[in-house]
């Protein structure tokens, strides 16, 4: 089996052939192939710029892999700011001994994910570090997008705005947890990992009054809603029974004493929408497979500023707090 060696990150001939045979071959585009010290880009108007580093164990999981997340995650951060994703940088930090075949599968997965938005990887970096310095593979991607819809902000949310979630929640976190801890499920629990730009583009194209959008990654839906409540100094009231959670995720949460609201997602976003546009937004989202069960989950009020309140179907309510500490299973 071909394995990555230290020399392939050393700047010499071996690194050069790794870059050409693998990265240039699969990420091929005019800007990247120029192979200059920096990519030269032409962009009109305002841009959005973001970066994220990706580490995930296991590298491959049901519904995705580290490469797919590294592309979708950064593109999603651009999309959430109303920006059409255009360019990405991509840096690999590879542990000596990683199988070449594994790296190629990941690169191919990134190539495939890029096709959903048309964004290009235009510059990159490769390091191979001694065994034990990283866990198999870390990827950093930074992204640039052109702002199509200005003014989206967590600080923008107003009383009576409607809160929408784009699909059932918690599948990515539950998938990773189940595969790490060897929880075997009979049915196929699958990460939601996906590029959200096509759905966002449609919403913007139809002039939906979007105040804010955020993908509910680490910290889950609970983190996003709390950040919004604080940033906009409002209360967000959620009707618990309207938040869809698939049976597998519910099962894992019941088993381990965890909350689906705290599980990470990689292709689920939350929207705060002007009340008159909420129904139309749902109709548009339903055209996309990845948003097939988008639903209205609550609204913005003045009840308790800076807090998120979860209302039960039997008439009681409680705070939904930001997740704290590591997610640990209950003891009994």
């Amino acid at each position: 089996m071909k394995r990555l060696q230290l020399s392939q990150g050393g700047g010499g001939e071996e690194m050069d052939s790794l870059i050409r045979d693998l990265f240039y071959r699969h990420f091929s585009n005019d800007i990247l192939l120029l192979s200059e010290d920096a990519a030269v880009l032409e962009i009109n108007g305002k841009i959005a710029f973001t970066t994220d580093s990706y580490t995930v164990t296991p590298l491959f999981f049901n519904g995705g892999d580290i490469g797919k997340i590294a592309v979708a995650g950064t593109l999603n951060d651009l999309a959430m700011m109303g920006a059409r994703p255009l360019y990405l940088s991509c840096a690999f930090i590879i542990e000596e001994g990683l199988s070449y075949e594994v790296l190629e599968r990941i690169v191919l997965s990134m190539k495939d994910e890029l096709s959903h938005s048309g964004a290009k990887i235009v510059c990159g970096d490769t390091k191979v570090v001694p065994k034990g310095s990283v866990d198999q593979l870390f990827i950093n991607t930074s992204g640039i997008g052109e702002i199509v819809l200005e003014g989206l902000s967590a600080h923008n949310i107003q009383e009576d705005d409607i809160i929408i979630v784009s699909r059932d929640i918690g599948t990515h976190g539950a998938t990773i947890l189940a595969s790490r801890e060897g929880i075997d499920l009979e049915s196929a629990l699958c990460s939601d990992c996906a590029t959200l730009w096509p759905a966002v583009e449609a919403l913007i194209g139809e002039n939906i009054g979007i105040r804010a959008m955020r993908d509910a990654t680490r910290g889950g839906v609970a983190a996003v809603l709390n950040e919004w409540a604080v940033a906009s100094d409002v209360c967000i009231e959620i009707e618990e029974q309207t938040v869809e959670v698939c049976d597998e995720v519910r099962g894992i949460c019941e088993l381990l004493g965890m909350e689906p609201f705290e599980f990470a997602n990689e292709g689920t976003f939350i929207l705060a929408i002007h009340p008159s546009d909420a129904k139309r937004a749902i109709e548009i989202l339903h055209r996309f497979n990845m948003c097939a069960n988008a639903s209205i989950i609550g609204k913005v009020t003045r009840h308790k500023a800076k807090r998120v309140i979860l209302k039960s179907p039997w008439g009681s309510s409680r705070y939904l707090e930001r997740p704290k500490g590591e997610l640990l299973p209950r003891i009994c």
Partner: protein
Amino acid sequence: MQDDKALFDIFRHPQTIRALSHKIHQEALKLSQPLKIMEVCGGHTHTIMKYGLKQLLPQMIEFIHGPGCPVCIMPKERIDQAIALARMSDTILLTLGDMIRVPGSQSSLVQERANGYDIRPLYSPMDALKIARENPTKNVIFFAIGFETTTPMTAAVILRADQENLHNLYFHINHVLVPPAVCAIMDDSQNRIDAFIGPSHVSVITGSQIYEPIAKRYGTPVVVSGFEPVDVMEGILKIIGQKNENRSEVEVQYSRAVTQGGNHKAQAMIDETMSVRENFRWRGLGDIAHSALRLRDEYAHFDAEVVFSQVLSYEPIDDHKLCICGSILKGLAKPIECTVFGTACTPNSPLGSCMVSSEGSCNAYYRYGSAL
């Protein structure tokens, strides 16, 4: 999965919960005085707060949150013992869930892990066997915690380790018992408790029988209930029923899994491997005789308290002077009565143990909002 879903969906059925609330309101009218119910177990505190059940009950019903949270009752000196064990060379320390976050006198296991020591929270105690097999040159120490519910798992691991002749797996046993703690609270002249909700998972192992002496001696109804909202509401209704009929008996609401005698096989495994300690110091409650378990002498070669006794101190360490976890665990105070609740003491930087575990009452009040 469909059938499994039915396992909890029917116990969170909105109409059923509303109907129980209505019935409780009706029955409570017949009560001659307010009813103070102690939910012994932190899991029930969690259910009450998470599902907002207090909001569905009449003012006459007051909950007093009991000591049944294995993390909350762990005295600092025993956490320091876990840390001392973890700091030994070539050692892997294993424990469960929130235990790694509880502060000892100087540090916590999570802090020690950041300092480079090998400390791992387990999802299942059985994983201890695998870790011991995979690390034959290390001392693997399981810091075992929990009430009667989790004790059989530890016993099963000990028996398996014995069968496999594992020479590098050790146990630091902190398993505690519900009835002695309940008696300690009731024997305190300040206690104000009229009835108990007993945890179903404890009684799945022990049977409902363990509460019979308590119901008799203190004249308090005990209803063994499940952890779903419908279970807790039905348990409360049964308690009110007993009060209105002047009964004080042990009743089982969770009849789907609890019998009077419990799980005899699990009891036999515990009995084979462990015996009752003369004394155990509980955080907040102090010394309680015969309230915890230790490894039997036949298994002393597995006992971390015997094998590594040279690194362990038993000097009692008191809680922070502003922390009122002791009064909370006895049901004498509510978390919001504590001056440092939510200010100097939060889940991120807990002063007291009740703020640490998701089953601790301070943590539940903080998370779910007592003020709503």
